[in-house]
């Protein structure tokens, strides 16, 4: 029986939860090592050795120490191709290319505006930081335009990269979950027919429900 892999970071972190969702989809045993960011543990010299930018998550298994959630996800899929969801990162080069394309779209087009909104709407209030209404308005508009593109795409295929759930869809779960729940902006997604359908399906996956449960337990 393999030693559980290690993930460092709080489950409430969107990037950490991205990795947890992937591990659960792939049925890979893991140990979550908490990092208390409000106490600055992510800037401790020991942590900086495994993540020099002082960000979460970090990941270790018996052969590697890695950071950047999307590359951790790709690694897990490549290392355990036959475990859990076998098609998560595609089973041939063309499928993989499409998944990478939409993973990049998530990282480059979806993540920036949605991250600002998650921070402003879900985290700033609880951290007693004043909200920036201009930033909120600008990023809602940007995100809405991105979701227009998704609406068209998801009218042509079941999931972003094709007809199967993949890393590309998974990568959207963390931010969208906060926007649809804590931030009260679910309408951004549900007001669009195909995006609403897609969000309903991906957020209902067992793996994501387990992550949400982990987040609730650590509040």
């Amino acid at each position, binding site marked *: 029986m393999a030693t559980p892999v290690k993930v460092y970071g709080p489950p409430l972190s969107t990037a950490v939860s991205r990795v947890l969702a992937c591990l659960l989809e792939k049925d890979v045993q893991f140990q979550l090592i908490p990092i208390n960011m409000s106490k600055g543990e992510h800037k401790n010299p020991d942590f900086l050795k495994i993540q*020099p*930018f002082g960000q979460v998550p970090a990941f270790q298994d018996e*052969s*590697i120490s*890695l*950071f*950047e959630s*999307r*590359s951790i996800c*790709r*690694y897990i899929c*490549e*290392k355990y191709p036959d475990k859990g969801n076998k098609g998560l990162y595609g089973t041939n*080069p*063309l499928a*993989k*290319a*499409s998944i*990478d*394309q939409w*993973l*990049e*779209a998530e*990282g*480059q*087009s979806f993540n*920036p505006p949605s991250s600002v909104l998650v921070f402003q709407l879900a985290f700033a209030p609880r951290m007693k930081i004043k909200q920036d209404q201009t930033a909120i308005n600008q990023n809602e508009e940007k995100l809405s335009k*991105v979701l227009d*593109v998704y609406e*068209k*795409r998801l009218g042509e295929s079941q999931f972003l990269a094709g007809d199967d759930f993949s890393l590309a869809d998974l990568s959207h779960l963390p931010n969208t979950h906060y926007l649809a729940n804590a931030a009260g902006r679910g309408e951004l997604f549900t007001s669009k027919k195909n995006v609403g359908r897609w969000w309903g399906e991906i957020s209902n996956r067992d793996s994501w429900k387990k992550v949400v449960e982990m987040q609730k337990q650590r509040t």
Partner: protein
Amino acid sequence: MVVKVYGPVRAACVQRVLLCLLEKDVEFEIVHVDLDAGEHKAPDFLLRQPFGQVPAIEDGDLKLFESRAIIRYYAAKYEERGPKLLGKSLEERAVVDQWVEVEAHNFNDLVYTLVLQLVILPRMGKQGDLALAHGCEQKLEKVLDIYDQRLSNSTYLAGDTFTLADLTHLPAIRYLVNDAGMGHLVTQREHVNAWLQTISNRSAWKKLMMLANY
């Protein structure tokens, strides 16, 4: 079958793709897209790239966008040819990928904003936001300190050979150093400086510079 690369040869993201194809000796044809004329927002182009950005590629039946997805595809397709852009093992490949992600999320946005404010907007006759540019410069200093530390332990970002991790940085660094006058960010850091000298000396990069008329 020649790979068609859609976009202007001077756009950083287009260059990322061209550089990969040059390293792997893959034949391509550049199909110019006139950004000034808004060609990237025209209905025809949006069919290729629904976010209205460059580059996009067409290779027979395959159509792809997002430069970092395109380079991952071609680096894997031609893994056996030319330099091992993805490393030599599963673990090395993951470290390569990690640094491509670092470039995408910790480096690119800062450089893009800085170049937009100091170079692009003024070229369009508009006022750049100097305070914003300066803020980016300060953040870049911290990021490049980490790169310098990394490069004091290995010749290239992902290890001891040139990979996608290094390649992906070249186009934006050229803008940063040559167009935005930020060369000191590199020259003040011994290992970053040595690294940039090494990777800019590659023949594929020199070919690209000629193609782009620099």
